């Protein structure tokens, strides 16, 4: 099967039907969730501070729902109106913008505490017109330069993406470096055809360690959500923080009531587990 990014620009590819299909597909949801949790893990945010994040190519809000559930405040940008419409229907809590990231951002310096991006960067590698501003290097430069400025110092931006060649990786990382980013590429499960995932981990400013994290390896794919929450829990214990990361039970009940009033279907029934902090399983 040929890659979607080679067939049409994203705002065309993800038309109304494709946007709904993509979002409703439970396999897509699971993969997207796994990659979002892994991206959050690589983002390595301080466990005891609330964070304001940018979701680059937020699509229909599949990652956004996870950011909501983990207690982050966020803003999402996407170039496909149909995907944003689905995000509105799903009532994610982040602010949404219709934006072509290859045209750059207008966010003020230091706006965000971090950025994540799932399955988006490869879309920047195709020229759509012959205009000079639509060449991939020009668009990547504009994107990384304005993103670097929009992130606070220090912070990180983590991108899961699907490169087709080492040349593409080389092009992307060299332009990111020129824009001022440190960091590099993390490959999870490099030897598995099915589980292999490529992440670009970019650093703004001085990190505790400038080393790029190790990729995951092993025979079995680990549950990214469990890994992320277990790690955050243990860091919190270490920093003796009292931060309430997960949204409060009262808040969730109130939100569900609101959805019911609006006639939303399939609101999960309240149970004694509602809003209970999930225990990390071992």
């Amino acid at each position, binding site marked *: 099967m040929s890659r979607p990014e080679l067939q049409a620009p994203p705002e065309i590819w993800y038309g109304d039907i494709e946007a709904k299909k993509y979002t409703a597909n439970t396999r897509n949801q699971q993969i997207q969730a796994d990659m979002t949790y892994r991206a959050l893990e690589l983002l390595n945010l301080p466990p005891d501070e609330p964070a304001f994040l940018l979701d680059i190519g937020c699509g229909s809000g599949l990652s956004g729902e996870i950011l909501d559930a983990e207690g982050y405040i966020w*803003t999402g940008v996407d170039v496909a109106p149909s995907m944003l419409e689905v995000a509105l229907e799903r009532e994610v809590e982040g*602010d949404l913008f219709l934006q072509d990231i290859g045209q750059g951002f*207008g966010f003020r310096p*230091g706006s965000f505490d971090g950025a994540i991006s799932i399955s988006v960067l490869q879309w920047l590698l195709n020229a759509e017109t012959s205009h000079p501003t639509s060449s991939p290097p020009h668009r990547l430069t*504009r994107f990384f330069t*304005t993103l670097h400025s929009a992130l606070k110092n220090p912070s990180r931006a983590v991108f899961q993406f699907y490169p087709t060649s080492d040349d593409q990786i080389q092009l992307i990382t060299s332009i990111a470096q020129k824009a001022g980013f440190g960091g590099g590429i993390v490959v999870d499960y490099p030897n598995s055809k099915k589980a292999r995932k490529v992440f670009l981990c970019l650093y703004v400013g001085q990190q505790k360690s400038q080393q790029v994290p190790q990729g995951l390896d092993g025979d079995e794919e680990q549950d990214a959500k469990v890994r992320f929450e277990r790690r955050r829990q243990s860091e919190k214990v270490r920093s003796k923080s009292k931060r309430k990361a997960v949204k409060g039970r009262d808040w969730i009940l109130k939100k569900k009531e*609101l959805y019911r009033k609006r006639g939303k279907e399939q609101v999960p029934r309240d149970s004694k587990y509602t809003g209970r902090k999930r225990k990390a399983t071992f």
Partner: protein
Amino acid sequence: MVRLITHNLLACHVKNCNANNFPLEFQNVQLEIREAEFNPEFVKGFLPKIEWKALVDTARQLGDTSLPNEQPEMLDDDFLKNLHHVLLEIHVEEGSMVCPNCKHEYPISSGIPNMLLAEHEIA
């Protein structure tokens, strides 16, 4: 769903529009108020990012006069709650944002601002 939290971070990104391009001015807006969970830690942590005058002026333009002219030194609960409301609970659903410098208009429809530029506006 554009709220003042992101509006306060947003400058115009049209080519060569580099000065006096913030804050974007709301025009012909329709508002919706939606409750959001109050997290005082988040609001406190966000304070250093805020351009205070732009926030106060914009909130007043949208009909909310709860914020003082100067950022107070004492952060009591009332103040943080007002700030929480201004940043996170006022949603601009329709209207537009206009750049004070180049006058580019970013239309807002169903709460989503259209930030797309024409070819000649791209830096």
